[in-house]
């Protein structure tokens, strides 16, 4: 479904270039959920922006559904690290933004929007403006917005990082449920190893800047998965430990501009 | 700019008096005489340090004089009468530049206007409140035409020649001396000039104005200024070409030939056969007042003393 071949990216900043990504080759299969983990600043967001068609790689190619990404696709939905709500729209209207832009069925989607808002605990806040919400609530509204269009591909950039542990767990479960019900290929960035293991079919581990693909770890734990004590706790712990180790080696102090 | 200060190197004894002078409207040939007086050193000889500023019309000049921003200025006598009647500004005339009004209506020959009568049914472009417009009822009466059949449309002074040349209006209010300018603007088409003076021989033109304070407190300065200015006027009438060059020296935007032509055209209006330049006759002032009173431009009861100080005017 999604293919990156030899993708590199260099930013030209005010103080010289930053080599953000280096020679990434990765294939995400149809209906698969790949989580992306790596140290802060290693280029995860940059990679996702490329898959979304928001940024052209300095070199290498990205294809989605067999077509090279030239510009963003309507069947790809992006959920940003920051909520990015439009300040002049109510929560409901923010959720319905893609419906307007993609000209989907308004009435049906309106109902769906109410469902989604209820699901993430925002029932009763439909008519509020974003600045009246807490950080987590904004992020939840943003999640609803990214789901409203029933996308083929869902790209999520640390979607749950502003949420409390329980909401987070609930939404993880909800995401798994949605994926059972409808086909959806997902790339999911997280900085929580726990979350990466919980959600992923495979976990892609990036090395610190410049981001290189260090390893892809298969998570062969049956679904639905939940955290806490269960039959697969050992396997979860094992994978987590492996990821932990993979992320470890580079000592932080060596970070610096390329 | 013009370097209006002139020479202070004059040999005259005593303190040099600094005065500010306003031309009638901008710095065309018709106003060149002040620069001539400056250039020829007449002001310096009189112990005056004169700063010449371009004026912007009679009412503005009166306000500036009344407000003490200028000491002398040129204003249309009719306009002065009307304004004085209305607002009682502390301004007084102390000499007459034009014995006969330069006010005129100018049309283009191709428009078919030949005589005042032809104006009926036509539009005249002029600045609202200008002499030509304000005095028009008087003129119409004297010329025997129906003033109500002539339509005045407002136009800004600098645009009047263009308005005429482009046919937006049939005629415009101007001064007699403006013929050259109009013909130049109209690309050589011939202009027809209908001077008010032809039917209103008594009507004065521009007057030299000063503030009441100045006239009361420094009559000697006033007299010296009048003498020097009118000496310049006399010289300029005698030497139009040189005066044109002098004007151009101080005001590089001006055209020396056009200015010379204006001066030549103005000469007959300044001093009729052998008359002293600048003189004012009480009888003629009364006649002017009567004309305006009859046409309703000013209320009845105005006296010459209200507008002119005959003790200061040049005596002929």
């Amino acid at each position, binding site marked *: 479904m999604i293919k990156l071949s030899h993708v590199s990216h260099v930013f030209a900043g005010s103080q010289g270039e930053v080599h953000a990504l280096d020679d990434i080759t990765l294939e995400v299969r149809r209906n698969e959920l790949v989580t992306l983990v790596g140290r802060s600043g290693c280029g995860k967001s940059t990679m996702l922006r490329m898959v979304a*068609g928001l940024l052209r790689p300095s070199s290498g190619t990205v294809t989605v559904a067999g077509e090279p990404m030239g510009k*963003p696709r309507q069947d790809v939905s992006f959920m940003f690290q920051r909520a990015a709500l439009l300040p002049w729209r109510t929560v409901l209207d923010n959720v319905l933004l893609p419906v307007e832009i993609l000209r989907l069925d308004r009435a049906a989607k309106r109902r769906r929007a109410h469902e989604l808002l209820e699901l993430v605990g925002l029932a009763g806040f439909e008519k509020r403006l974003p600045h009246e919400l807490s950080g987590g609530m904004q992020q939840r509204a943003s999640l609803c917005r990214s789901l409203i269009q029933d996308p083929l591909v869902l790209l999520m950039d640390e979607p749950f990082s502003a949420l409390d542990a329980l909401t987070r767990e609930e939404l993880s479960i909800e995401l798994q449920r949605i994926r059972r019900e409808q086909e959806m290929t997902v790339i999911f960035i997280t900085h929580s190893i726990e979350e990466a293991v919980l959600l992923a079919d495979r976990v892609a581990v990036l090395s610190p800047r410049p981001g290189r693909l260090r390893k892809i770890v298969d998570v062969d734990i049956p679904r639905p998965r939940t955290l806490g004590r269960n039959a697969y706790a050992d396997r979860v712990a094992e994978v987590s430990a492996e990821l932990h180790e993979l992320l470890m080696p580079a000592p932080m102090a060596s970070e610096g501009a390329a | 700019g013009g370097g209006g200060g002139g020479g202070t190197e004059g040999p005259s004894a005593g303190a040099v008096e600094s005065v500010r002078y306003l031309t009638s409207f901008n710095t065309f040939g018709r106003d060149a005489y002040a620069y001539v007086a400056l250039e020829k050193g007449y002001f310096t000889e009189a112990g005056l340090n004169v700063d010449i500023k371009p004026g912007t019309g009679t009412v503005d000049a009166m306000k500036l004089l009344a407000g003490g921003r200028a000491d002398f200025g040129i204003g249309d006598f009719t306009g002065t009468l009307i304004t004085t009647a209305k607002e009682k500004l502390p301004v007084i005339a102390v000499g007459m530049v034009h014995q006969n009004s330069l006010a005129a209506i100018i049309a283009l020959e191709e428009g078919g206007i030949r005589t005042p009568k032809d104006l009926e049914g036509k539009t005249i472009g002029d600045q609202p409140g200008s002499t030509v417009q304000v005095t028009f009822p008087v003129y119409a009466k004297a010329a025997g035409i129906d003033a109500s059949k002539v339509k005045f449309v407002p136009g800004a002074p600098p645009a009047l020649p263009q308005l005429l040349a482009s046919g937006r209006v049939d005629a415009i209010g101007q001064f007699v001396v403006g013929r050259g300018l109009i013909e130049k603007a109209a690309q050589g088409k011939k202009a027809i000039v209908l001077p008010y003076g032809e039917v209103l021989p008594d009507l004065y033109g521009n007057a030299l104005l000063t503030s009441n304070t100045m006239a009361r407190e420094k009559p000697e300065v006033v007299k010296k200024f009048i003498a020097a200015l009118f000496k310049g006027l006399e010289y300029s009438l005698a030497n139009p070409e040189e005066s044109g060059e002098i004007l151009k020296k101080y005001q590089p935007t001006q055209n020396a030939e056009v200015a010379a032509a204006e001066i030549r055209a103005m000469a007959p209006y300044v001093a009729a056969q052998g008359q002293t330049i600048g003189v004012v006759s009480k009888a003629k002032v009364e006649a002017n007042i009567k004309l305006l009173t009859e046409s309703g431009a000013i209320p009845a009861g105005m006296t010459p003393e209200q507008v002119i100080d005959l003790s200061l005017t040049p005596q002929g």
Partner: protein
Amino acid sequence: MIARPRARLTRRLVDWGLPVLGLVALVALWWLATIVFSIEKFLVPAPDDVVEAFIGQAGFLMEQTWVTLLETVQGFAVAVVVGISTAMLIASSRLLEKMIYPLLLAVNAVPKIAIAPILVVWMGFGQFPKIVMVFLLCFFPIVISTATGLKSTPAELTDLVRSYDASRLQVFFKVRFPYALPQVMVGLKTAISLAVIGAVIAEFVGADAGLGYVIVQSGASADTPLAFAAMALLGIISIVLFYGLNALEKVILPWAEENR
């Protein structure tokens, strides 16, 4: 941040009382100045002279006010439409911006009072040159403000709609334009008083109606109180239009007035 119910009355008072107080203070100051410095009426008339002049010609002045108001509003409306469209062009591409800006600047740089007479020569004595003049004066601030507003959309918001492969129009109307609206309003507020001035300039050089014409007329006859009455009416037009825009802003941009 918090509006308590009991604060509402005070708020209302402040909203209306203070501006009125400010104006009253201004008039009082003016009056005082004319008395203390014994300024003459033909120079600066006292408020009572002006009121007298106004009452003496109330009907006539109202008619002239209406003429000027109409010209102002029409020209302003045209400037809003054309100005915002131009700003859209400018904001849509750096290339167009680089080409259009200098032209705009060149046009804007021409002193309008200098070309006002020429406009009359071209377009005659009707309403048209007045509307054009109003347009010319208020066009530029609208363009600059709107263009700046349109160019300042946060990257996260444009990225968001871009990620839906939204059309340029959609990006514009869903995000860029609403985001720029507070900025657009700044332009409109600057422009509205220029619009009034534009109408006056145009009336100065070739009109037989409107408050600008009244000013020329009364100026020429040294009837300064009447000129001031006309100027006061112009001031009132300006202020009313400005507060109209302000009210409009409060209604359409409740989200923008949040921080202080």
